[in-house]
């Protein structure tokens, strides 16, 4: 996708989208398949609709093809509303999941079927079919019937047939679901190649996230008739906007806890101020730390009196609270202590948040967390490959000790399931640069897992 200049029409305010969904809703009786959906797809994009079955991705595709009409809203193709145009009158073709090849027609006639419907002259049809056969490397099989060729070849016939009319938009409904893994990977690259050669806009529906990530320029992750996130595969993977996306795409460790704004050690002037302002419902013990300039947190005389009276009445409670709250502090303390001990921690960027996520475990530092989340329940989504595993305690912003429970050996990489002292499990991945016999970490080993201060993504619960 990356040529000399990056292909990103979605960032270009000048770019005109090819497809626009505007407030599209589709209901089947009481069931809402698509819920007020708005989305732009740009020319030459390879756009993936990704989601579990029943999320509405197939309904969206069928609305683009014309097999379903939206209950409300409009679908624009090149600025023209096609929501109620029948399928045979729109410049959109579809490659079906079952391929839907006509069993009584030869490969050649299957590809020619669409061309013959638009009363072109014979020579033009022949030339176009031959071109399609060459593009999909099917010339040898032109005279065969669909049942006389292999699954991979049938898949290419279906592709050739749907591309023959040079549609503005090609829809692919789980196009590779029926192929075995090896063939599927090959075909993915072939699809991308053909997409680039023909310059057609592709919209692919899939439940296979690897497939979506491989082929697509942008991925829309769907759930229950809504689009949760639309972004490039890198952004979807590295910066998911919700726990749903993080969990759906790839493998992930989810550390649930409470955010605590982290004062910046190096820049105490502006950083904490911002933090405090952004966190109006901060925890009480942080109130005194507020700068005098901040009037909102200055208790007046009445407030002080009220506080003191109440404190006398509910004294036991209030006494308890502050005691319980700072508890994580000492627990968190060893970590900064540990980090500076061998070497000061210059690699911990200031700011961000700390997450108290388990009793008896040091809080994890997420320097990329939004300080505004202070005091709120958050989830740290941490990809296993960003978690290192070692037998000796490493120097890192976040270090947790545990025991190896399981090792998933995948050949090129291994996934270690590490149980921390509080019983929670964290997955860490390591590339197998050494032969398995020389691997130094094995089951039941006491290990340290570590990750950088920006390894995870902080998501609001």
């Amino acid at each position, binding site marked *: 996708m990356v040529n000399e200049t990056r292909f990103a029409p979605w960032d270009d305010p000048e770019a005109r989208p090819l497809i626009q969904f505007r407030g599209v809703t589709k209901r089947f009786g009481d069931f809402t398949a698509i819920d007020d959906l708005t989305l732009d797809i740009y020319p030459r994009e390879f756009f993936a609709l990704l989601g579990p079955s029943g999320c509405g991705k197939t309904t969206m595709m069928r609305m683009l093809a014309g097999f379903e009409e939206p209950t409300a809203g409009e679908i624009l193709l090149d600025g023209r509303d096609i929501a109620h145009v029948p399928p045979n009158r729109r410049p959109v073709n579809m490659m*079906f999941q*079952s*391929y839907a090849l006509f069993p009584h027609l030869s490969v050649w006639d299957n590809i020619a079927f669409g061309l013959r419907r638009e009363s072109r002259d014979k020579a033009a049809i022949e030339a176009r079919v031959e071109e399609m056969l060459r593009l999909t490397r099917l010339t040898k099989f032109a005279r065969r019937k669909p049942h006389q060729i292999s699954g991979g070849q049938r898949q290419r016939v279906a592709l050739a047939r749907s591309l023959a009319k040079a549609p503005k938009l090609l829809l692919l409904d789980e196009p590779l679901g*029926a192929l075995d893994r090896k063939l599927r990977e090959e075909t993915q690259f072939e699809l991308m190649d053909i997409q680039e050669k023909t310059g057609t806009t592709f919209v692919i529906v899939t439940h296979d996230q690897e497939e979506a990530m491989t082929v697509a320029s942008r991925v829309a992750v769907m759930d229950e008739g809504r689009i949760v996130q639309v972004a490039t595969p890198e952004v979807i993977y590295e910066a998911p906007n919700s726990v749903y996306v993080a969990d759906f795409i790839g493998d992930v460790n989810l550390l649930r806890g409470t955010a605590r704004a982290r004062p910046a050690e190096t820049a105490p002037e502006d950083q904490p101020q911002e933090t405090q302002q952004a966190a109006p419902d901060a925890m009480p013990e942080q109130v005194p730390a507020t700068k005098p300039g901040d009037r909102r947190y200055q208790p007046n005389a009445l407030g002080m009196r009220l506080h003191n009276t109440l404190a006398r009445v509910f004294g036991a409670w209030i006494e308890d609270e502050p005691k319980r709250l700072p508890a994580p502090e000492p627990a968190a303390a060893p970590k900064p202590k540990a980090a500076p001990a061998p070497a000061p921690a210059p690699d911990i960027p200031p700011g961000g948040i700390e997450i108290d996520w388990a009793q008896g475990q040091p809080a994890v530092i997420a320097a990329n967390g939004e300080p505004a989340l202070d005091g709120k329940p958050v989830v740290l989504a941490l990809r296993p490959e960003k978690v290192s595993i070692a037998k000796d305690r490493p120097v890192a912003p976040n270090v947790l000790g545990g025991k190896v429970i399981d090792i998933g050996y995948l050949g090129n990489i291994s996934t270690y399931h590490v149980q921390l002292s509080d019983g929670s499990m964290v997955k860490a991945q390591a590339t197998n640069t050494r032969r398995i016999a020389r691997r130094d970490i094995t089951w039941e080993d006491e290990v340290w897992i570590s990750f950088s201060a920006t390894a995870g993504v902080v998501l609001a619960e």
Partner: protein
Amino acid sequence: MRRFSWFNATSLTLGFAFLYLPMIILVVYSFNDSRLVTVWAGFSTKWYGELVRNEEFLDAAWVTVRVAFFSSCLATVLGTMAAYVLVRAGRFRGRTLFSGMIYAPLVMPEVITGLSLLLLFIGIGLDRGVFTVVLAHTTFAMCYVSVVVSSRLTTFDTALEEAALDLGASQFDSFRLVTLPIIAPAVISGWLLAFTLSLDDLVIASFTTGPGATTLPIKVFSAVRLGVSPEINALSTIMIGIVTVGVIIASLISKRAAVAQARDEQAAPRTT
């Protein structure tokens, strides 16, 4: 489980004897030299010769074939349309009622069908003849066709029609170019079924027929009332022959179609 046992052999023999003994006797006696039906007097094909010279029988045969041909064609078109609509229309109120109604003539006593048609024809002042018999046969053969065709259509992958539409075919073109060629075996066997049913129908034909439109079964029936002649045996033998050939062709077609369908379904990928 292919073990031979005396019980199986006996029941098989009895069953087939029960079915085919009467017909074998009929066929054998059609080659009898004697005029008396029950006395064997040597092999002869003279009754077939007599039959060919019998104008009445030939006329009746010609009427029967015409009626069978036109009614089965009409029944195939209407039955296929009905099946297509009932299978494809999706859910609508009263759908079960409609599909039930299509099958009702299958179980309706022929006498009632015949009588009601007769009343209708009299009511609208239609002169009874070949045309009314064709209409009557179409009426009841149509439901057989629609049963055969709709059972094929229920396993038909709708994605094929959608693909045709998607490639720019009109609704009618997608039926003509995709659906019809694929379900053709079912349509043809439906046609053969309708043809055979019309060929041997006596009850409905005798209610709805008129002067100059005597079908063969009516002719045979009335001739037998005057006494069984070897000519009738010869005629019946020919009819058995025709029907047998028809049934064999129909079963071959449907068998080949089943093989082709299994093959195409295997060709289509499994949805995960």
